[in-house]
C-alpha cells in the first residue's frame, strides 16, 4: 500500500482485546454482595454468589507485541493488582 506521498505504508491490523477485572479472592466484594441481595429480593432462588467486576474492550494496533502491551495496560492502570485480578482475551 502507498500513501498519497507514495511512501510505503505498512497496514497495521487492529486487534480487539476483552478485559475483565475483578477483586481478588479474599478481598471483600461489597458490590457483588449487594447485587446478590438484590437478586434475593427479586425472588431469584439458588443464587449462591455474585462477583462484581469491570469489563473493557480495548482496540489497539497489532505491532506484534499485543499481549505484552495488554499486560502492561492491565498491571499499570486497568487493574490495581494489590486488590484486583484480571483476565483477557485477544480476538
Amino acid at each position, binding site marked *: 500500500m502507498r500513501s498519497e506521498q507514495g511512501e510505503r505504508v505498512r497496514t497495521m491490523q487492529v486487534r480487539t482485546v476483552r478485559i475483565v477485572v475483578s477483586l481478588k479472592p479474599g478481598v*471483600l466484594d461489597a*458490590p457483588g454482595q449487594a447485587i446478590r441481595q438484590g437478586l434475593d429480593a427479586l425472588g431469584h432462588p439458588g443464587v449462591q454468589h455474585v462477583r462484581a467486576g469491570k469489563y473493557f474492550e480495548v482496540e489497539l494496533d497489532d505491532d506484534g507485541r499485543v499481549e505484552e502491551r495488554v499486560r502492561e495496560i492491565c498491571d499499570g492502570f486497568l487493574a490495581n493488582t*494489590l*486488590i484486583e485480578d484480571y483476565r483477557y482475551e485477544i480476538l
Partner: protein
Amino acid sequence: MDIGVVVFPGSNCDADTCHVIRDVLGHRAQYVWHEERQLAGFDAVILPGGFAYGDYLRAGAIAATSPVVRALREYAVAGGLVLGICNGFQVLLEAGLLPGAMCPNTSGQFRCEFVHIRVERIDTPFTCAMTSGQVLRLPIAHAEGNYYADPPTHQAIIARRQIAFRYCDPRGTVAPRANPNGSLDAIAGVASRVGTVVGLMPHPERASETVLGSEDGRLVFESLDRWITAGGFPAGVPVSAGAGAEAG
C-alpha cells in the same frame, strides 16, 4: 505559609480547604489546576476531597495519571510536604506515593457522619501539634474508604510506623463498631516513612470551626504551620531523612 490546593475536574472540597487556610487561619492558599506541571515554591500541597475525574475506573486512578500528580511525585521525592484528604488520599495510594489500596466500604454504604480517630504518629508535618493517642472528632464522607494492604505490606507499615491515624471510639479505644468502613487494622490515615506525605479519609477542613460542630481539624493545619515555622525536621534528624517519598 503558602499552600497549593490541587483542583481536579470533580474535586469538591477544594474551596473548603482554601477557606480554612485563608479565612480561618489567615495563611495563603492558591488553587492549582490539574494540568499544572510546576509545584516548586509551595510550603505544602494538599489534594482535597471529591470525585476526581468522576472516580472512573477506581477512585483516584485517573487523577494519578494527571500532569499535576507527575509534578507532585517529584515534589514529594524532593521532600515536599503533601497531604491527601479523602479522595486526595485515594489519589496518593493510586499514585504509589503511599502504600495500600482502597476497597468499597464493607457496609456497602456511602458513610457520611462524624467519627473519632486516634493520633498514632506525631512526628509528621500534619500531626506535630497533636499529642500521641489524642482523639479527634472529624467527619467522613465516602463509599470507598476500606483501607487494604496485603499481609507483608501491613507488617511493613507497622514496622515503619506508617499508620498515622486509627478509627476509635470517643475514648480512644479501637473497636470494630468504631470502624466505619471495615479498614484493615482500623487504619484511617497513613504516612510515608519520613512522614512528609500523609493521607487520611476524614475531613479536617470540614471540622475547623465551632459552627461546624468540631474544631479538631484545625490541628492538622496548625501542625503544618508549626512545622513550617520551625523550619522542617527537628534538630537531630538527618537531612537525608527529609527527602524521599515511598510507597513501601
